[in-house]
């Protein structure tokens, strides 16, 4: 990892020194154990603070819209997919973007780490090959990195950036597409069971909109929840129906656009299982149209194309 970090720094310094870009968006060490944090380098000196680690979980595509001038971004697989999806929606101009691609085999989920230590606070984490040593206030635990990855990372088969101007490190071996077992299980439940799950998850929602704001694809100038003429949705959080409506509409709006980066779920302070919802349209769009968002620059977005062969099963009720 530290080798990658050095290479990223080098690439960023060069770009800035040669004035090929005026900003490099990447990660720097955060203030907590296992916490990389988004960082904006505008000079070669600032680029020295860039890093790369198992904790660079934020989707940096979020920071690229409306940035003036030419911008470079340190982008892992999911960031690049979001960038591609945003380019297709005319939100980013490929010509003003320099992608420093970094193959990624997954980022560590701090919640899983915390669970390993029980009620102890995680004070430090040391990487050691395939494992990490997690140090708590009273004891330490060694765990396999593979067991600690975000679920979205486990399901991701696009760790290699699909588009880049420069690649840092080595491309990873191809990974099989994940099954959608947890979605299938959820689909198999009765309506009442699904309803009960939704009610229980969304009774936790505090309507802070961290999920929406963390999502690179949620860029509407005015989100439907903020609109008051007409008022599409109740603003009060005590009504679980409205909390569900908010998320369901968000998820539908992301159909064919969501790259399944998991940023929404990671941002949620209340630990709501959001990917169970966002992955359902990911699965449907793949099954119905054999399409995935942001996997190449050529294909049109799934919902922007029509062919006579398109499956219409959802239009018919048998």
């Amino acid at each position, binding site marked *: 990892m530290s080798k990658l970090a050095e290479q990223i720094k080098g690439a960023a310094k060069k770009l800035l020194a040669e004035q090929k870009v005026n900003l490099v968006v990447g990660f720097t060490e*955060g*203030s*907590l154990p296992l*916490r*990389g*944090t*988004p*960082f*904006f380098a*505008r*000079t070669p000196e*600032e680029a020295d603070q860039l890093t790369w680690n198992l904790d660079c979980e*934020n989707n940096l595509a*979020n*920071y690229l819209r409306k940035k003036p001038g030419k911008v470079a971004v340190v982008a892992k697989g999911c960031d690049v997919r979001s960038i591609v999806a945003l380019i297709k929606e005319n939100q980013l101009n490929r010509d003003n973007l320099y992608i420093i691609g970094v193959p990624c085999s997954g980022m560590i989920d701090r*919640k899983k780490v*915390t*669970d390993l230590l029980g*009620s102890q*606070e995680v*004070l430090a984490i040391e990487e050691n090959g395939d494992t990490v040593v997690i140090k708590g*206030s009273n004891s330490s635990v060694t765990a396999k990195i593979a067991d600690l990855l975000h679920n979205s990372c486990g399901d991701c088969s696009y760790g290699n950036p699909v588009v880049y101007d420069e690649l840092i490190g080595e491309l990873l071996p191809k990974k099989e597409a994940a099954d959608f077992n947890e979605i299938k299980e959820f689909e198999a439940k009765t309506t009442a069971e699904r309803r009960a799950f939704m009610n229980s998850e969304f009774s*936790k929602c*505090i*309507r*802070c*909109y*961290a999920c*929406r*704001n*963390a999502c690179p694809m949620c860029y509407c100038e005015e989100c439907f929840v*903020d609109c008051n003429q007409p008022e599409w949705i*109740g*603003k*009060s*959080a*005590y*009504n679980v129906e409205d909390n569900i409506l908010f998320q369901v509409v968000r998820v539908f709006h992301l159909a064919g656009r969501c790259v399944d980066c998991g*940023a929404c779920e*990671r*941002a949620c*302070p*209340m*630990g709501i299982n959001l990917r169970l919802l966002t992955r359902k349209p990911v699965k449907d769009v793949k099954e119905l149209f054999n399409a995935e968002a942001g996997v190449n620059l050529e294909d049109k977005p799934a919902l922007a194309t029509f062919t006579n062969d398109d499956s219409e099963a959802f239009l018919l009720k048998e």
Partner: protein
Amino acid sequence: MIISKKDIPGFLDKLISEYQVFAPVQEGSFTLFKPISSGTDVDLTAANTKLPAKEIFFPQSEKLFSYNVTEEGAKVEETLDEQKKVIFGVRPCDARSLVLLDNVFDNDKFQDPYYLTKRANTIMIGIGCNTPLSTCFCTSVNGSPFDTKGLDLLLVDTGDAYVVEVISDKGKALAEQASLAAAADADKIAAAKVKEAATVTCQVNIDGLKDKLDVNFYWPIWDKIHEKCLGCGACTYLCPTCHCFDIVDDAKDCNGCRVRNWDSCAFPIFTLHGSGHNPRTSNKERYRQRIMHKFKYFVDNFNEIACVGCGRCINNCPVNLDIRVVLEDVRGSEARLDS
């Protein structure tokens, strides 16, 4: 006084018969304050609850009154929660946040009956922090792990028992009513030792911070500080002293109720004027407002910093925008800091 840990459920069960009792309860991977129906529901293992105790007095959504409008007039019915309450297991930072919020809801001109009625009818039983987290910085903002401000009773965990310190008359009456045993000298010494051993390792230097904020509103420092902020409301909603709200109608035709909901200075529409004009046009102005409000305006108005150092915003920010780092950056800022 003292109460053995095994007697806590019984103690709470007695309280439940007379009061609505709130206590930290396990909810998935964290705890939240919830009304409990049994003394065994309580979970005091977590350092703190996910949402602060403010939500009991100032809930995320609160009905203010209901109304019914006819040709003859409008019937407006106030909805005041006058139930007697006990908050059990509140941490000193959260208790102190309520003392700060009292300034807002009981200001120089108006009183908020919803908040103040609940405050007046509530007994606060706090629990001191034997092992503060690495993100706790209460001692930097005029608090401490065994601070008693805003509490009626304070529990000190000495292992098998809690030594109970009486802070107020309300607390005294409750302790006497519960016939708590007197603490032996040995217990008192044990409690004193626990308090002494509890250390807050994280220090945030706020010397000179206010002086900087007094003059740096237009400085370039603000152009950088907010840059990674996503503009969500997580930090404000989880903050024990953030108190901004919106007022909405929840109604069918002319019958319904007026409700107040948490709102956040991080949201663009918070200050958006009907004309389309917005005094805080971008994330920069909005993030600056959050810092200014807590560390300057509140100090100007009430002579207190509106931060209790609980660390919730640090642990829950989706992008690790750490308020400790921000304050340090502000403190170190120069008028001509440029890059």
